[in-house]
């Protein structure tokens, strides 16, 4: 079965936009060999206005290989079944803010997995409780 991801985007912003529907099989860099490692599916509750490491690269039990084909999925799933579109969490790489996931929003992003390029989550300026679900797929070093 491998590891696969399918995206479907629909929008009525622009007349005639037919939407996007694409799939990918997560493979190792530059090959058709399936990706072989994962952080496992996890959740993390945030309840303070401070940045934390969601993924600390050096802390992974199976060491990730640097600068290849890793991917991460993250979703803001709200708290106790309540998804609040006004509560956002800024996701960053090595302290560089990539963007904010508001309630229900998800992202799929490639990663370098370099030691310094930890994935951070920062709910500031809100300290509302919010839970992120995430899973990283990568190549073993």
């Amino acid at each position, binding site marked *: 079965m491998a590891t696969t991801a399918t995206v479907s985007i629909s929008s009525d912003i622009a007349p005639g936009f037919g939407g996007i529907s694409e799939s990918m099989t997560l493979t190792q860099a530059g090959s058709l060999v399936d990706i072989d490692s994962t952080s496992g599916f996890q959740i993390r509750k945030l309840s303070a206005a401070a940045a934390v490491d969601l993924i600390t690269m050096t802390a992974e039990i199976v060491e990730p290989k640097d600068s290849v084909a890793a991917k991460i999925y993250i979703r803001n799933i709200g708290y106790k079944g309540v998804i609040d579109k006004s509560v956002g969490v800024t996701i960053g790489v090595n302290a560089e803010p990539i963007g904010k996931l508001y309630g229900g929003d998800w992202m799929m992003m*490639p990663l370098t997995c370099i030691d310094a390029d930890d994935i951070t989550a920062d709910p500031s300026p809100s300290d509302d409780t919010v839970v992120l679900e995430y899973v990283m797929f990568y190549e073993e070093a």
Partner: protein
Amino acid sequence: MATTTAAVTLTSDLLSDNMSVSATTTCMKAGTTADGLDGMEYGYLDLVTGDEYDLIGATPTASKASKLYLKNHSTDETYFIAITQNAQAIGKLYGGDWMFIPADFHDAAGDIAITANGGTNKICYALFHEGITLVTT
């Protein structure tokens, strides 16, 4: 209200039982529940090797709820595009890979830049946003 929805289905057999995750979100303006993103930019182009290019030419309003979709449509799996933001390497999209991220565009340095490797890469991108500043001639 304009409506943009993004859905993902993720499956994997790397764990002891098969994992399957599905999620859908309606892309709203920052911090609102009543107003959807109302601007978009959509393109399909060849990305030649040799230089780093800003993917987005105009500047979306900073620190909002923009979403960026990008796919490498190259059919050669050894081709890839490297993605950086503000000189920070984000990752690589090999032929067939896609990404969907919230894009902060926190300031003028927050552009998302891409570099082709291996050969000319074909890419498709869509930016959903809540306002951009066009570059004057």
